[in-house]
C-alpha cells in the first residue's frame, strides 16, 4: 500500500475562486492510501515545495498527488521536488483542477465537486504507480541539415560555430536556395546576393561543414542521438574534387537550348552548367536529359576542353551512409503553379509573370541583365499591375489555392512596386490587394513609403480577368473602396503566387516520421513554446518548411533550431522518457497491429525462441519496442488485440482505476 500525500493548490484566486480548496483537501483525506491532505496558496512556490518535502520526510510518503494547474505547467517542478526529497519522480501525479476545472466553471459547488473527483482519480492512479527509471543512450555528435537555402545555411553555420560537424544535403547542384534568386531584400533593400553569397563562401570554407549538393536523403533509421541516414548523391558526371569551375566546358557545349531553371525558364543554359556565378560548390553539372554524349554517345566536347580532366561520363549515383545525432529540416518553399489561375492569362501571355520571375527580370544577373523588359517583345513596360494573394487566402476556391496567408507577398510586392517607380519613374504601378499586411520591424514604414513617396497606386480589390489583346493586357478589376469596376491597359501583370512547401517535404516527413499539417508544412512540437522542434525527438525545423516566412524570420528560426541542436549534441548521453510502451512477449500474438499504428517507427518484430514447459523450443514472432524512439503516445496499447502492449506510467490498469474513481 502506498503512503500518499495530497497537496491542493489555491493558485491565488485562480483555483480558490471557484473551488473550495479546503473542502477538496478534506474530501481526499479519506481516499485509500492517503496519509496526509492539505492545501496552500501557491504550491509551486519555494515554501509550497518545502511543505511537500517536509511532508514526505514526516509521513514517510511514497506517492504524491498535487491538485493544481496543468501538468504541462508544473509536473516537472513537482517531480524535482519529490526527487530531492528522496522519492522516485514518477510517483508524482497532477490533478489538473485549474485549466480543466476552475477556469471553465463559474459555480463553486460544481467546481468543487469536479475538483474532488479529479483528485480521487489521481489518488487511484498513484496507488498503482511504480518507480520508473529513464534509460540512457549515446549521442552521435554530428548534425544533418536537409536543404541548403538561407535557412539551412544559417543553421549549419551556427552549429559548426559551436564546434560540431554538420552536413548539408541539397538536392540542387548548388546551395543558396530561393534567396539566391532574389534581387533586393525588404525592408532595407540590400542586395540579396551581397548578403547571401558571403555566407555561402563561409559554408564552403568551414572545415566543420560538408556540402552534399545534387543529393537527397533516401533513408532514415534510428532515433534521437542515433540516426542512420542514407544520402543519394546524384551523378553530375563531373568529378567535384577536380573541377575548377573555370567554365570552359560551358562555352563549348553545343546544347545551348536548355530552359534555365535558375531564371525560371526565361532564358536558356547549356547542358553542362553552373547554375549561377557564385554557385557553391562552384563545379559544373551535366544535365543528363539534354547532354548528347549521355543520351546517344555523340559529342564529348566538354571532356576535350576540360584542362583539369574533370568530366566523367561513366559516373554513377553514389550512396553515402552516415550517422547523425540530430536532423534539421530546411526544405523551404516554392510558389504554387499558376496553371489553375487561368483567369489571369498566365498560360496565354508571356507578359503575365510571377513575382519570382519579376525578381529575375530585375536582377543584374538575370536574363535581361537587370533591365525591366517585357518577356514578349523586350520593350519597357509603362503600366504594371501587381496582383496580390493569387492563391493565398483562397477559402472559397480551396481546390485551386491555399487557405492560408503566404505572408511574404505584401512586402515583396511593395518592394517591387517601389523599385520600379524608383528606377522607371515614367511607369504607372498598380497593386491590387485584399489587405496589406505588414507586421514586422520597419515593414509598415516601408509600405507607406511605396504609397506616399513613390506614388504606387494601391487599390483594395481583386483582379477578375486579364485578357491579352494586341500587345496590351486588358485588366478588369474592382475597386472596393470606390465601389466601381476598373479597366486598365497594362503592359505587364505580376502575380504574387501563394507559396507552398517544397514537394520533397512530404516523402521526407514520412522518412523522418515527423508530422505535417494538411498543407504539408511541418508541424512544430508546440506552436508557441517549441516552435523549432518537430514532435519527433531529434528532428528540428528551420525556415519556410514550417510555415511561410520572410528572410529575417527564417534566419532567427534557423539560429533557434541550431541552438536546439547544439543543446542536444552537447550532451554525451540522452535521458529517455521512461513512460514508454513495452510488450509482454508471452501475450503477443505477432499480429503487427501495433507496428502499423506506431507513428514513430518504434516497434519492430523479431523471431524469438521460447523454451516450452516440455523442453521443446518454439520460435514465435513477437513485438519489441525501442524505448529511445517510443514517445509514449499509447496508440499501440489501444491497437493491441491481445493486451500485450502496455505503457509504463499509463498502464491500462491505472487508467481503469482512474475511470473507476471518477465513476464511483
Amino acid at each position, binding site marked *: 500500500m502506498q503512503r500518499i500525500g495530497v497537496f491542493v493548490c489555491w493558485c491565488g484566486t485562480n483555483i480558490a475562486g471557484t473551488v473550495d480548496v479546503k473542502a477538496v483537501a478534506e474530501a481526499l483525506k479519506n481516499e485509500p492510501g492517503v496519509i496526509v491532505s492539505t492545501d496552500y496558496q501557491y504550491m509551486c512556490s519555494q515554501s509550497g515545495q518545502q511543505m511537500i518535502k517536509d511532508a514526505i520526510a514526516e509521513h514517510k510518503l511514497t506517492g504524491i498527488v498535487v491538485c493544481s494547474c496543468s501538468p504541462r505547467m508544473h509536473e516537472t517542478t513537482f517531480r524535482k521536488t519529490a526527487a530531492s526529497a528522496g522519492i522516485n519522480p514518477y510517483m508524482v501525479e497532477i490533478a489538473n483542477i485549474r485549466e480543466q476545472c476552475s477556469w471553465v466553471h463559474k459555480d463553486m459547488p460544481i467546481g468543487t465537486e469536479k475538483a474532488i473527483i479529479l483528485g480521487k482519480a489521481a489518488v487511484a492512479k498513484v496507488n498503482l504507480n511504480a518507480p520508473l527509471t529513464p534509460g540512457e543512450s549515446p549521442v552521435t555528435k554530428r548534425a544533418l541539415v536537409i536543404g541548403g537555402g538561407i535557412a539551412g545555411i544559417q543553421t549549419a553555420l551556427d552549429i559548426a560555430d559551436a564546434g560540431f560537424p554538420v552536413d548539408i544535403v541539397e538536392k540542387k547542384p548548388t546551395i543558396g536556395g530561393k534567396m539566391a534568386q532574389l534581387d533586393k531584400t525588404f525592408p532595407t533593400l540590400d542586395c540579396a546576393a551581397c548578403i547571401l553569397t558571403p555566407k555561402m563562401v563561409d559554408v564552403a570554407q568551414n572545415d566543420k561543414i560538408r556540402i552534399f549538393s545534387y543529393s537527397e536523403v533516401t533513408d532514415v533509421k534510428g532515433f534521437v542521438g542515433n540516426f542512420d541516414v542514407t544520402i543519394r548523391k546524384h551523378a553530375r558526371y563531373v568529378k567535384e574534387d577536380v573541377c575548377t569551375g573555370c567554365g570552359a566546358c560551358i562555352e563549348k557545349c553545343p546544347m545551348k537550348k536548355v530552359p534555365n531553371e535558375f531564371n525560371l525558364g526565361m532564358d536558356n543554359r547549356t547542358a553542362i552548367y553552373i547554375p549561377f556565378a557564385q554557385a557553391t560548390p562552384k563545379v559544373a553539372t551535366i544535365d543528363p536529359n539534354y547532354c548528347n554524349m549521355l543520351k546517344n554517345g555523340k559529342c564529348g566536347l566538354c571532356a576535350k576542353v576540360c584542362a583539369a580532366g574533370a568530366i566523367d561520363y561513366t559516373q554513377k549515383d553514389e550512396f553515402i551512409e552516415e550517422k547523425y545525432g540530430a536532423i534539421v529540416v530546411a526544405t523551404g518553399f516554392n510558389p504554387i503553379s499558376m496553371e489553375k489561375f*487561368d483567369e489571369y492569362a498566365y498560360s496565354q501571355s508571356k507578359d503575365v509573370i510571377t513575382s519570382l520571375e519579376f525578381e529575375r527580370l530585375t536582377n543584374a544577373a538575370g536574363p535581361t541583365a537587370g533591365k525591366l523588359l517585357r518577356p514578349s517583345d523586350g520593350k519597357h513596360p509603362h503600366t504594371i499591375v501587381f496582383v496580390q494573394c493569387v492563391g493565398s487566402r483562397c477559402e472559397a476556391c480551396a481546390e485551386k489555392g491555399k487557405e492560408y496567408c503566404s505572408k511574404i507577398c505584401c512586402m515583396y510586392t511593395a518592394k517591387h512596386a517601389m523599385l520600379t517607380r524608383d528606377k522607371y519613374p515614367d511607369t504607372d504601378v498598380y497593386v491590387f490587394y485584399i489587405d496589406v499586411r505588414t507586421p514586422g520591424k520597419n515593414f509598415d514604414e516601408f509600405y507607406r513609403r511605396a504609397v506616399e513617396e513613390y506614388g504606387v497606386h494601391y487599390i483594395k480589390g481583386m483582379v477578375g480577368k486579364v485578357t491579352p*489583346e494586341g500587345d496590351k493586357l486588358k485588366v478588369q478589376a474592382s475597386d472596393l473602396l470606390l465601389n466601381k469596376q476598373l479597366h486598365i491597359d497594362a503592359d505587364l501583370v505580376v502575380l504574387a503566387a501563394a507559396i507552398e512547401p517544397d514537394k520533397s517535404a512530404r516523402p521526407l516527413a514520412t522518412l523522418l516520421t515527423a508530422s505535417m499539417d494538411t498543407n504539408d508544412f511541418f508541424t512544430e512540437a508546440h506552436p508557441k513554446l517549441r516552435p523549432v522542434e518537430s514532435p519527433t525527438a531529434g528532428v528540428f525545423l528551420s525556415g519556410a518548411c514550417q510555415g511561410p516566412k520572410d528572410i529575417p524570420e527564417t534566419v532567427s528560426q534557423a539560429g533557434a533550431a541550431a541552438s536546439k541542436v547544439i543543446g542536444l549534441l552537447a550532451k554525451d548521453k540522452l535521458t529517455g522518457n521512461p513512460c514508454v510502451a513495452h510488450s509482454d512477449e508471452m501475450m503477443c500474438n505477432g499480429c503487427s497491429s501495433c507496428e502499423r499504428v506506431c507513428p514513430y517507427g518504434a516497434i519492430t518484430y523479431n523471431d524469438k525462441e521460447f523454451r516450452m514447459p516440455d523442453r521443446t523450443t518454439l520460435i514465435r514472432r513477437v513485438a519489441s519496442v525501442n524505448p529511445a524512439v517510443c514517445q509514449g503516445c499509447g496508440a499501440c496499447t489501444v491497437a493491441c488485440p491481445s493486451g500485450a502492449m502496455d505503457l509504463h506510467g499509463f498502464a491500462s490498469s491505472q487508467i481503469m482505476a482512474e475511470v473507476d474513481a471518477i465513476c464511483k
Partner: protein
Amino acid sequence: MLRKRTKMMKVSYFPGCTLKNKAVQLDIYARKCAEALGVSLEEIENWQCCGGVFSTAKDEIATKLSSVRALKEAKEKNRPLVTVCSACHNVIKQTNHAMSTDAEFAGKVNRYMAEDTDYAGETEVMHYLEMLRDLVGFDKIKEKVVKPLTGKKIAAYYGCLLLRPNSVMKMDNPENPRIIEDLIRALGAEPVMYANRNECCGGYVIMESPSLAEKKSQAVVENAKSAGAEIITTACPLCRYNLLKNGADIPVIYFTELLAQALGLKEDTDEQ
C-alpha cells in the same frame, strides 16, 4: 472480311424548350450526329422546361421538379441523361447535385412528388460534349470525319453556364477549358484561343439592361476576332442569340452544326 456491327449505345435525352423553336439546328444535328456516331438519343417522355435558371433559394422546389422528373425517368431506364443546351445542362446537373447532397431539399422534393420510389441523384448527367469526349471519344470522331473543316479558324465560346460552378459541373477547367477546342481539332479545323471564351455574354440581363449585354457580347466577339477567329461556335442558345443580336459580324453557329458538317450530314452554308 465481315465487320462486326457495333451496337447502338442508348442514352436518355433532354432537348429543352429552346431547342424546339429558336435553336432547332442545335437539336436536329445533335440527333443526326449521335446516330452517325453510334449513340441513340431517346427523348424523355413528356419532358417539361428545365426551369431556365437554377434558383439558389434553397427552399424553392417548384422550378426544379421537372428536372427531377427527367432525371428520374433516366434512372428508371438505367441510362445517363444527356443534355445539349448549356442552360438546361446547368439546371439539371445542379438539381441532380442538390438531390444527392442536400438531404433536406431532396426530402422536400420527394415528399411533394409522392411517388412510389424516391430519387436521390443517382442519374449521371452528361452534356453532349462530354458524351462525345467520354462515351464516343474524339479519336473515333476523327476517324468518322468525311469532310474535315481544314483551314477554318474557329473560336469556341463557352459562356458562363456550361462550366460553372466547377465543383458541380466538373466538365473542364472553367478558366482554361479545352473540350470544344479538342472537338474542333478532331474535326480538322484550327481552334482559336482567346481570353473571353469563358466570359458571360450578358445572358438574361439583355431583358433589363440591353446596353450591358451589348458591351459583354461585343467584348467576346472582338476578342475572338482579334485572335483570328472566322467562326464562333457555342453550345448555348442564349449566347448565340446575344452575340448575333449585338452585332457579331462573323458566323456564330452551334457545335453540333460543325460536327454535322464534318461528318457530312450538313452542307457548309454558314447560314445564320
